[in-house]
């Protein structure tokens, strides 16, 4: 290997020699390579001016940026705006329809209802999930961290079929747009502790299987039934205790509890009420999401179209109530369309 096959052959060297025979040639890079390097250096300068690289973008001056040929005067903000416009154009064909449609009409249109579900998901996560939980599962408040009046759900679950104010999609829209305030008076002055205890037993029994029959066997339940019928409970909850949606009173016979459904929890609700002004009252406030000024301009965070999307989205959680007949058992499912009445 000691033979030097590649003699310098007249190429000048740097003059340094290592290990007896290793020398550095002074070889120029190829011409095409040098041309490329020079062209790249020139391009840096041109690019630096064309995409204004210094923040002195003053209108009318050269440094405002000349932009790439054919692209007009390019800025990153303009590019963003153009990209967003593409998105808006894609959505435009649906968005333009939503404005004049009722939530029920949107729900009936398969294509539109699919579209609003997608954007409804984002709106719900941003605005609603804090209280109602992701996907409307509700936020359970339990344990020592919370006061007795705070035990139970922070806000109603939205994916069951129990609705205080009604589960039709247009009603859901009204609830979101206008807000709701639960109202139940405190009974700590009108009923004795014994009566409250009895009526709590009765209310709890009603939600259990065969609960109403327990009245015959269980003395507390029987006494509670009497209190329920004779005091003002039926005024709001109805004689059958199934609630009156027009006033938002709870259905006491189903399995869903808006607040803590334990005996202690029920007594707490009856004693201090809901939004009754009492310090120990339960709080149930749905904010008003649609606000307008005198000229009718929307001033709230959400506008009508967003709330329509939310209404359809919440409806489709699984508890939404159709305009008429309930779902049929599949075995004898008549393949009839849900007749619009």
């Amino acid at each position, binding site marked *: 290997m000691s033979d030097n096959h590649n003699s310098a052959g007249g190429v000048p060297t740097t003059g340094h020699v290592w290990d007896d025979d290793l020398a550095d040639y002074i070889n120029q890079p190829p011409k095409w390579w040098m041309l490329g390097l020079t062209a790249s250096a020139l391009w840096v300068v041109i690019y630096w001016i064309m995409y204004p690289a210094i923040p002195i973008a003053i209108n009318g001056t050269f440094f405002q940026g000349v932009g790439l040929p054919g692209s007009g005067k390019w800025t990153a903000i303009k590019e963003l705006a153009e990209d967003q416009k593409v998105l808006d154009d894609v959505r435009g064909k649906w968005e333009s329809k939503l404005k004049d449609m009722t939530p029920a009409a949107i729900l009936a249109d398969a294509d539109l209802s699919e579209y609003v579900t997608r954007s409804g998901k984002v709106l719900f996560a941003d605005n609603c999930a804090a209280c109602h939980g992701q996907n409307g599962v509700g936020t359970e408040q339990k344990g020592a961290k919370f006061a007795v009046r705070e035990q139970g759900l922070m806000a109603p679950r939205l994916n069951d079929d129990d609705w205080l104010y009604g589960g039709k999609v247009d009603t859901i829209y009204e609830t979101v747009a206008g807000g709701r305030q639960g109202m139940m008076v405190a009974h700590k002055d009108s009923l004795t502790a014994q009566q409250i205890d009895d009526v709590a037993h009765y209310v709890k029994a009603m939600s259990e299987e065969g609960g109403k029959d327990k009245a015959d066997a269980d003395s507390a339940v029987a006494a509670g039934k009497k209190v329920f019928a004779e005091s003002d409970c039926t005024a709001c909850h109805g004689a059958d205790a199934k609630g009156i949606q027009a006033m938002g009173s709870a259905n006491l016979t189903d*399995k869903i509890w808006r607040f803590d459904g334990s005996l202690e929890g029920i007594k707490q609700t009856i004693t201090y009420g809901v939004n009754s002004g009492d310090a120990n009252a339960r709080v149930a406030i749905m904010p008003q999401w649609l606000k307008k000024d005198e000229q009718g301009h929307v001033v709230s965070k959400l506008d009508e179209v967003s709330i329509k999307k939310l209404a359809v989205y919440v409806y489709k*959680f699984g508890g939404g109530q159709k305009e008429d007949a309930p*779902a049929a058992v599949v075995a004898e*499912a008549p393949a009839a369309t*849900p007749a619009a009445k």
Partner: protein
Amino acid sequence: MSEPVKKAPAEVGSVTGIYNEHAEWSTNLGDATIHAKRMPGRFRTLKYITESFWLIFFFGAYLRWNGKQALLLDVNNRQFHIFNLTILPQDIWMVSLLLLLLAMTLFAVTSVASRVFCGYFCFQTAWVDLFTWIEGKIEGNPNKRQKLDAAPWNADKIRRKVFKHLIWLLISLFTGISFTIWFVDAFAYWHDLVNLNLSLMEIATLIAFTLGTYLLAGFMREQACLWLCPYARIQAVMADSQTILPAYDVARGEPRGKLRNAGKTVAQQGDCIDCFQCVQVCPTGVDIRDGQQLGCITCGLCLDACDSVMDKIGRPRGLIRYASLDELEGRPVHKLYQHPRTWVYVSILLMALGGIIYGLNHLGTLTLRVEPERQPLFVRMSDGSIQNKYTFKVLNKTDNDLSVIVKTEGGIKGQQLIGSETPKLIAHGRASSFTIFVKAPEENIQKEITPIEFRVENADNPGMAAEYTTKFTAPAR
């Protein structure tokens, strides 16, 4: 061309032999254009026949089937149409088997008869053959072509050269168009082309393939086989001493020498008369008498040339012939079925083929996926029943929009299906999604998780259906 190589037999194949041979290696770097002679013969005819396979490439895309392009690789819409079949991205695994099948076919053929693909089917070979044929028509035979190349530029040379390149470019353009129309509707593409209304991608593809064809077939030619083609590099590992390939019978041919005495060879002289016809017809410019080598695409044209010379001098044909190394070196010649290498390739080939046939028979028309809602897993309804939410994704692989109805199998006694009252419209060629709820009375639920099978079936044709098994979740018990 290179002088005949004289090898000392003891050195052939040994390490010293390789280094001694080194001086004899001549490397075709494409400095001089190879103007190969065209001679008629069996393999020349065979080559014309096999090369006409590429007419399918030019005209196959115009075939119509039920008013649509019969063969359309619609990459833009992510679906392949092959007559009645529509292959969607979900079936793409079959493409990997197809590639395996093609590779193994190539391997198996190579192990039996060496580079049959290169010599008879390869697009590079076929296009170069077409380009040189045109060159011969315009510029004359190889001698005239060499003279024309060397001649100074005059009106005649310019006319011939411009005409030749124009024809080459036209063929290249037609090649580019023919390639593109396999991916877009052929007639719509021609319409857009005539109206200069092609998309950027279509223009780019057209230009790339036009220039690529022009450069590769017009200028690169055998250099593409020598230095660009990956298959040329790997093919040697598939061939062995049992593989037949065009070979020069050294024992019969050597010592070679000029033909003398009116058709009678001098005693002690082999059959090779050193006429160089085999070299002159070679499209890659190799001398087959040097043995098997990288440049040889085994096209068999030298066999035709040698046979015609052997006929003329009254010697038997087959001085250059398809023969295995075993045969030439006097070892026992094995039968084709005694070639284990081929069996390995063929068995992999058959497995791939089996997979594709299975896949094509199980393409299905509907595909169903059901995702149970994860948050919440279940919801307790006001009557105490438990409701689960399912997102259905139904892929419709047919060419028509379908209405499907949803049914269940198993699950909980007394369960209700909510959301399936009306048939669901599933647009063709894509996946549609919808939501179904299942509500079951709690007293009938036995386990936390109960399997449930969903079935969607075409409302008009219940035989067209797809099933998916998932689970119904209830509170822990």
